[in-house]
């Protein structure tokens, strides 16, 4: 296909207001589409429609969770905030851990892709969270992986679990990031909907903190890393086949798999390249390309900056032939970053990229306007106020209602269950528990993860928390634990979320570290189910109130809705990650019994 084939430009859109557009197939509701038309004062172009639809999706816009998540901000006191250098709203939270060190950490879900293609779904989940940490200016230092699967003996678990574990390991091991902990939990509600959450911790000097923004008129926008291909453009292919019906590529592309394939080697090189760029001080702003690809990176960079942005889309290096502007903007090809660089530094930037054999292309420029303008071979295909794409998406006040089954569930007390009464019964009971999937050894999983690489791992499996040394000279380090018991949350979402927080907090504390901050990954069913929304609202409140009681802030997190098979939602699973600081890792307290003759003391009631 030649580039002169019909392109749905702004000019053309203005001239053809009556054109019907497949916005419903792209996931936009009638009123959302109407709002896009209102913002633009015309119908959107295909490229704009692709951008709005993906940026206004639940995943990117948090439209169902926003009203509840604000509770975290409302309850965070100045004192809790005192060591927080970046919080909710940034790529990842950042805390000051002393001695001039800042630590950034975040957990994110990659649940659905890991069900479709376990290996690649899990691998790219790790890749995505690592780029988030990198985009803060930090060196990624370690990963963790809270996982949930269906019943251990279900045939599909046999497909999903080995693939997920191999994917987490395959990507993390190849990046050279030690895996310092995680969870493996089995429950039938995760059968068609496993949870693959990935957490990454990174560190930097406080002054090296980078925030994603594009400012300074005339500064250049550089896309670097992998080429852009037809990965994960899933839904957007309806546009391609509409526009190019009959075209050679169109028919084939309709069947595009919406999976992405990871290339950890490219990401490893990208990490080293970025860190060298940071050291040279030649990055004004930076953003990783994750879900929503360039749509997200360009609109977020532009809306966080002080001007507009012009992007020449035909400059984007492609991997596939005949990609349309909408496809290029929506591609979720992995291992890409976008940086804003002063013109005088572009040569130096390119030199560092060449050293690491990283492809880098100047694709745009910061302008003194207030619009994000994207052109395609001279024709304007996007002309939008970037905030309307990135930050001013729809906000829903979904109905919230305590499920009718809640009373029944709570009334079902364990009192009626048989208790072992003889020592033989007790022995049998203990053996049964030790052999049960949820309590058995995790070695089959953890053996597939490198826990030693980088030489800073002080605690990893089988410890209650993972611990890494940040500063070799002083021994300063951090501990991290992530936990959640979905059954407790199901029984009582408010208290259950607090129990998850308390467990992670304790795991960090018993390793000898001082808990300082919290991240979370809130995995729930459909937000359109009022009962699920109630679970969500209660869990958020419980977690936030728990954080106030403990005096540590939530610095960031991730929401994953629509985790259900048919009408059956997963157990509500708000995974809570707690970060702790230890002045000298040599003082860590390992898990397990000490020497013979030591006294065992039980604390608490």
């Amino acid at each position, binding site marked *: 296909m030649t580039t002169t084939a019909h392109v749905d430009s702004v000019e053309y859109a203005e001239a053809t207001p009556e054109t019907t557009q497949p916005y419903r197939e792209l996931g936009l509701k009638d009123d959302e589409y109407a709002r896009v038309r209102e913002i633009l004062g015309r119908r959107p172009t295909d490229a704009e429609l692709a951008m709005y639809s993906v940026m206004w999706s639940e995943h990117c816009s948090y439209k169902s969770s926003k009203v509840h998540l604000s509770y975290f901000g409302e309850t965070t006191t100045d004192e809790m905030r005192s060591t927080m250098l970046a919080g909710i709203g940034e790529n990842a939270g950042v805390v000051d851990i002393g001695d001039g060190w800042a630590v950034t950490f975040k957990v994110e879900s990659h649940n659905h892709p890991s069900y479709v293609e376990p290996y690649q779904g899990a691998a790219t989940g790790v890749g995505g969270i690592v780029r988030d940490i990198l985009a803060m200016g930090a060196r990624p230092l370690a990963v963790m992986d809270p996982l949930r699967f269906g019943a251990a003996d279900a045939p599909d678990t046999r497909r999903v679990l080995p693939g997920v574990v*191999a994917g987490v390991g395959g990507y993390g091991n190849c*990046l050279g990031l030690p895996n310092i902990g995680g969870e493996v939990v089995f429950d039938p509600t995760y059968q068609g909907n496993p949870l693959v959450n990935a957490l990454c911790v990174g560190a930097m000097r406080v002054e090296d903190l980078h925030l994603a923004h594009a400012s300074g008129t005339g500064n250049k926008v550089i896309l670097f890393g992998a080429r852009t291909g037809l990965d994960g453009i899933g839904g957007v292919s309806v546009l391609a086949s509409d526009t190019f019906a009959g075209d050679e590529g169109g028919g084939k592309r309709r069947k595009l798999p919406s999976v992405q394939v990871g290339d950890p*080697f490219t990401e*490893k090189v990208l990490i*080293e390249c970025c860190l060298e760029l940071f050291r040279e001080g030649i990055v004004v702003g930076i953003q990783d390309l994750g879900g929503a690809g360039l749509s997200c990176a360009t609109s977020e960079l532009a809306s966080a900056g002080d001007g507009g942005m012009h992007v020449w889309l035909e400059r984007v290096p492609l991997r596939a032939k005949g990609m349309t502007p909408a496809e290029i903007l929506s591609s979720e090809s992995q291992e890409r970053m976008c940086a804003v660089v002063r013109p005088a530094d572009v040569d130096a930037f390119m030199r560092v990229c060449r050293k690491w*054999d990283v492809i880098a292309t100047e694709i745009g420029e910061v302008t003194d306007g207030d619009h994000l303008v994207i052109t395609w071979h001279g024709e304007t295909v996007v002309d939008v106020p970037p905030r309307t794409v990135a930050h001013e998406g729809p906000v829903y006040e979904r109905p919230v209602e305590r499920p009718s089954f809640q009373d029944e569930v709570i009334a079902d007390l364990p009192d009626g269950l048989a208790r072992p009464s003889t020592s033989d019964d007790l022995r049998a009971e203990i053996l049964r528990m030790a052999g049960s999937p949820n309590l058995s050894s995790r070695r089959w999983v953890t053996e597939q993860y490198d826990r*030693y690489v980088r*030489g800073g791992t002080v605690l990893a499996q089988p410890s209650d928390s993972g611990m890494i040394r940040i500063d070799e000279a002083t021994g300063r380090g951090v501990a991290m634990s992530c936990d959640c018991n979905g059954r407790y949350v199901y029984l009582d979402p408010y208290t259950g979320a607090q129990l998850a927080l308390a467990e992670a907090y304790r795991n960090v504390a018993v390793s000898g570290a001082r808990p300082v901050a919290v991240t979370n990954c809130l995995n729930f069913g459909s937000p359109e189910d009022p009962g699920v929304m109630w679970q969500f609202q209660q869990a958020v409140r419980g977690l936030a109130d728990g954080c106030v009681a403990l005096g540590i802030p939530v610095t960031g997190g991730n929401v994953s809705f629509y985790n259900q098979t048919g009408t059956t939602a997963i157990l509500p699973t708000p995974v809570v990650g707690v970060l702790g600081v230890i002045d000298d890792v040599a003082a860590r307290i390992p898990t397990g019994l000490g020497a013979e003759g030591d006294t065992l003391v039980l604390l608490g009631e």
Partner: protein
Amino acid sequence: MTRVGVVTFPGTLDDTDAARAVRHAGGEPVSLWHKDADLRGVDAVVVPGGFSYGDYLRAGAIARFAPVMDEVVGAAHRGMPVLGICNGFQILCEAGLLPGALLRNAGLHFVCRDQRLRVERTDTAWTAGYTAGQEIVIPVKNMDGRYAAAKSTVDELEGEGRVVFRYLDVNPNGSLGEIAGISSADGRIVGLMPHPEHAIDPLTGPGADGLAMFSSALKAVAA
């Protein structure tokens, strides 16, 4: 101070750890870049672990063509001590400095575990600090660690006493003859799958059994 080169390819992961181990042993680590045909005057070289160039074709297959490897091969032939750890071992085999090849683990999974080994040979540049038959614990972590070679090659290695380390208790990757590490005929070049650089301090590893490998080389160079 004895200068020990540590090679970095794109995709190398354990280079900072190898450099730290050299420092702990009392040497000066010097980083060597894959694109440079220059050993910067070092007295010994460590080719560390990782996934050079992603190892997508075959572990070590692309790295051995890097400019720096021509220099390493030349220096090794002149008697410079060279240690290949994990991916480094794979690269030395691909480059023909050591015989055989390292293939996908028999269990088909990546394996990371604290591994007991026996030091079978102590007259190499890298093992003189151990006692013959000494049992040590060193982490293994690899996907492609199964030592394989023609039977005649293995017989020759065994006959000449060039098996330097052997796995004890479990064979983590299905290596022929439980081979964990081998050496060149003159004992100057050693390759092994386990990671001595991750066993230099009980704080961050299973112990400090790996340190003697680096201090052995410093002594060998000084002698």
